[in-house]
């Protein structure tokens, strides 16, 4: 754990409180004493079946951050070809091989929210959702997604 990492995370916290990123509703560390675990809430992009939903993401920051990417998982259940249905694991290249320290936690969250609107059925973590999309049955895909959004993403927001 380096001082530079801490400094940068502090800086990111300050910046995220000051400026808002697109689709990112909230971003803060789980615990004030621990800057290596964060929680984020993103909104579903407009004109997608995720519109109106609020999705919680848990973020784990490695000690070598920003040289290594943070690990992100959906806490809220999401039906999406690139999101593992049970664990909430996200398949997004920028969180793995394409990571660059120029990304911040906030911009990465924004990218994850964008991924909701732009599914990549060719590298699926949710094979069922990907198959529906690959068949070209967008209507079925949209209604399936919408159902889960209304079940998990909207109800929970109302509860909280």
């Amino acid at each position, binding site marked *: 754990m380096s001082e*530079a990492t801490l*400094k*940068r995370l502090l*800086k*990111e916290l300050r*910046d995220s409180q000051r400026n808002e990123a697109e689709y990112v509703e909230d971003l803060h560390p789980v615990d004030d004493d621990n800057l290596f675990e964060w929680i984020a809430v993103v909104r579903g992009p407009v004109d997608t079946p995720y519109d109106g939903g609020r999705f919680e993401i848990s973020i784990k920051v490695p000690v*070598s951050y*920003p*040289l*290594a990417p943070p690990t992100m998982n959906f806490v809220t259940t999401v039906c999406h070809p690139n999101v593992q249905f049970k664990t909430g694991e996200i398949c997004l290249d920028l969180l793995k091989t394409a990571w*660059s*320290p*120029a990304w*911040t936690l906030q911009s990465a969250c924004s990218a994850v929210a964008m991924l909701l609107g732009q599914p990549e059925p060719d590298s699926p973590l949710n094979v069922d959702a990907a198959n529906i999309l690959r068949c070209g049955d967008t209507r079925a895909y949209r209604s399936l997604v919408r159902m889960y959004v209304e079940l998990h993403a909207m109800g929970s927001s109302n509860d909280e």
Partner: protein
Amino acid sequence: MSGAPKVSTRRMAATREVSMPSSGPSTTSPTPVLSQSDRLVPNPINEPPSAPMPLTSNVTSPAFPSSPSNPDNLPPTKSLDPSLAPLSPQLPNVTSSQPHQRPKFDLSFPGASQADIIRANQKDEQAEMMLQQQITQVVVQTWGTRFHMRHGQDINFGASLVYYCLTTLAGSQTLGEEYCDIFPVTASSVGVPRPPPVSKRLALVALQCVVPYLLSKWASALRGQGQLAQFANLPPQLEAFLRAQGQLPPRPPVVEEAPALVENPSIADRVKASYKSMQSRLPSIIPKIRIFLTSYVTPLHLAIFYFTGIYYTIAKRLVGWRYIFTRQLHPAELPISYEPMGLVIVLQTIVEAIRALRSLTTLTETKASEQGATDPEALADVPEGDEIEVETDEWERQPPPVVMSGAKKCTLCLEPRKSPAATECGHVFCWRCISEWINESKPECPLCRQSIKAAHLYPLYHYI
């Protein structure tokens, strides 16, 4: 055996511009040949009739410029044809049979063609420039660049002076003239073209070398004075400051002028005063004169050259310095004419002159309208200026764009860059941030993903 070679030599001689009108009694058979060759060889110089080149009377002189009075009728040293020699013994016969009607022998040398004059000039310029460059090199190596910076003009002048003193003034051809095989002759000597005398050579070197140099020196000196005159309008504090800094020469004593004005001015004083006033105005006039010369006089002179084909430079026209060929011209290479180019230049100059005149008149009109500006116009001008001011104020009041504040930040640590380093792709980070990224993660730019190497990071000094 005896007749045939004579005819042939005669014909050759005729083609070498010995035009022989059909006056000779012994030349019955070659006459048609001669007249034909006459047609082949046109009047060699398309010159105004004031300066005729042809050598009409004295046949025995071989008309070679360097040896105008050759007693032995020897063939001229250079390219004049030896076939003239067998012809010359016959000539007395021709003249003796008809003593009152002297035959006209056009033994003239053809005037140098325009193309060759231009080529010689360019060759000379090239040689001059080479000499200048070599001398410059020597000067720079011995006294350094600073010396050359200060005296470059003088050095170039010295080089061209050396070049023309060694060639023209010494009485030999310049390299360009030699290259084109043209010989300088004087225009004034009617009949025999003579090599220019020393006085003319001196005059030419002075006119094309020394005078321009002195004029430019004088102009630059006057320009310096003009700048001083501009300083006269400075606010007094600034002027004092500049003088203290040594940017301005100490103010000349003004006290002397006052009594001179009071007294009755003598003629010398008046002349002095008029010269002074002229001098004060000259710095503003000289550029105009220069523009006038370069945009009207020089092109028009060039056009005249294209029409007449004699004097390529003004200096040579002033001296009367013309060129002849000492070799024989092929009929094919004769009729080169640059008249269309001359015409084009004249047209261009006229158009330019018209445009300049028009802009001058509009300038005076606008000046007049500015001076006679009525109040409403002046009032109309004011809000405009105000608007502009308001705009700039608003722009200044706006917070600086985000890019500006982010520009000095490292995208890796999100802080102001410490000892900045640039990648090959031109992105700038902290040295430590980017080298850590390269060494511990992957060798590519965090911003544009271009592959980079730690060895190819450039530290940026004095860069914030």
